[in-house]
């Protein structure tokens, strides 16, 4: 496996809605097995970028390549077998059981010729175990807390057995305990991960970071290299300096406004 060849990349990607140019000239490549974080202020285009990379929206310009193939030439089903998405706001009024919700993740692999089998059940069970939600299996969606719902969404994405996982701010609105648990799970996954994050300290634990501002890619590289105090000032409008945690030597950011 050539680690240098990106599994998912985009070239000159643009997207506009009405008068607003949400993304402009994005050039990005995700390496196999890495966890790439996407950060930026609100409205910088993080969600839009993820949606375009997952073929949930059609770009206005440029193209997305999956394993070197243009996305628009692939069927939705093929894409889904390679790539899974965990959305920011995905909810339902249906009284669906947790097991069934996770089982939806097997959809891209099922067909009239290959119906549901014991193998699929095993995969769903494994996905539930991976997010520590096995005990929730028979609960109804309505009775879950926000954190539990998010974990079930991740389990569904895992049940898809993708090679690439895209997560759009998966830790929003969650208790700190759940936030950290989910991030830990995600980082431990052997799949390539693209994760949009709000919390800059959490972003530090990614392999690489892409910084977006007003639809443009401002920087791409290792967190400590790109998330410089200067960048934090220009893009995020905050004063920052790094501290070293005496406990284990990791760098953490201290942020303050003017």
């Amino acid at each position, binding site marked *: 496996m050539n680690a240098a060849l990106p599994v998912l990349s985009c070239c000159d990607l643009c997207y506009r809605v009405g008068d607003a140019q949400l993304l402009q000239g994005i050039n990005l490549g995700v390496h196999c097995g890495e966890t790439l974080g996407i950060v930026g202020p609100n409205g910088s285009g993080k969600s839009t970028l993820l949606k375009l990379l*997952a073929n949930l929206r059609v770009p206005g310009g440029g193209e997305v390549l999956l394993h070197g193939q243009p996305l628009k030439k692939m*069927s939705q089903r093929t894409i*889904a077998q390679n790539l899974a*998405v965990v*959305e920011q706001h995905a*909810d*339902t009024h*249906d*009284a669906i059981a947790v097991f069934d919700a996770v089982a939806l993740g097997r959809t891209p692999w099922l067909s009239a010729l290959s119906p549901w089998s014991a193998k699929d059940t095993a995969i769903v069970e494994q996905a539930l175990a991976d997010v520590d939600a096995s005990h929730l299996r028979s609960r109804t969606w309505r009775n879950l807390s926000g954190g539990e719902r998010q974990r079930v969404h991740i389990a569904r994405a895992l049940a898809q057995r993708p090679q690439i996982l895209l997560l759009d701010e998966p830790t929003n609105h969650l208790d700190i305990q759940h936030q950290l648990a989910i991030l830990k799970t995600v980082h431990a996954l052997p799949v390539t991960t693209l994760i949009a994050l709000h919390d800059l300290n959490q972003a530090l634990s990614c392999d690489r970071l892409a910084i977006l501002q007003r639809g443009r890619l401002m920087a791409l590289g290792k967190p400590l290299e790109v998330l410089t105090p200067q960048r934090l000032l220009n893009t995020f409008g905050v004063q920052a300096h790094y501290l070293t945690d005496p406990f284990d030597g990791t760098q953490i950011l201290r942020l303050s406004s003017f």
Partner: protein
Amino acid sequence: MTARLIFTFSACAALLLAVLAGVAIGETQIEPGVVLQVLANKLWGAGHVLDPIDEGIVWNYRLTRALVAAACGAGLATCGVVLQSLLRNPLADPYLLGISAGASTGAVLVAVLGLGAGAISLSAGAFVGAISAFALVLLLARASGPTGASAQIILAGIAGSQLFNAITAFLITKSASSEQARGIMFWLLGNLSGVRWPSVWLAVPVTLAGLAVCLWHRRALDAFTFGADSAASLGIPVRRVQLLLIGCAALVTAVMVSIVGSIGFVGLVIPHAVRLLAGTGHGRLLPASALGGALFLIAADILSRTLIKGQVIPVGVVTALVGAPVFALILVGRRHTR
């Protein structure tokens, strides 16, 4: 596997019993024994000597009526399930896309303005009206934005329905004599009295075909549980599936409405009631709703013919009178299961 067999078997039995009830009960009294003899004569040539009027009533009026009621109930319920799932809206029903409103406009144009000069039947006018309204709603939905979001479709459907309802009301108040207005009302509220064997040969295959198409896409429908984007990320070609299934629902509904007028509440309430029993998986929800719709409409039709002696209440009135309280009960029930 056995559970499925048991369900299928009991479903067929229930349907058969319901049809028999619809054949045995009616406006006038016909002995159950006579009813069975008529069926025996017609199905395997038993050769009983019977009053030809009784034979005609049982075979040509009541049996066709029961079969069409079953087909329409099943068709409308199936369409209700599909629209509620695709549009992610529990209040969606088959008439959301402007179909019933368009059908009434078409029927009124024929009956009140005399379009076609008595050569086009109410049904043909209704069908054309239904399809035209649906086409308009589709155009409106596309024009309001390219993403095909369910909110756009719903709003376009409401706008289209309001427009065609207004046209219907205008035509009726401006041009209709009381007799014409009455004829239209009778038809608009749902009416199974003009049904004969040709309607059966139209309604039953259309419903079965529609159900088959929707069942084929049951996994795609399941995938819409968390929204259209979620479905796309699960590998469903969203635009194509939406267009196909909504188009299929529109066609089935248009055919049903043109045969029997607009019978409300079946497409709205039956899916909710069945979800409480069968769960949310479309593999079970679709056939169960179809069965529930069929049984419900047969029962409503029997009631409509027997509630008041010597008079037939439009079946749409019965479904509303029964459907509205049932819907209220379901809503209240949902609140308590939180």
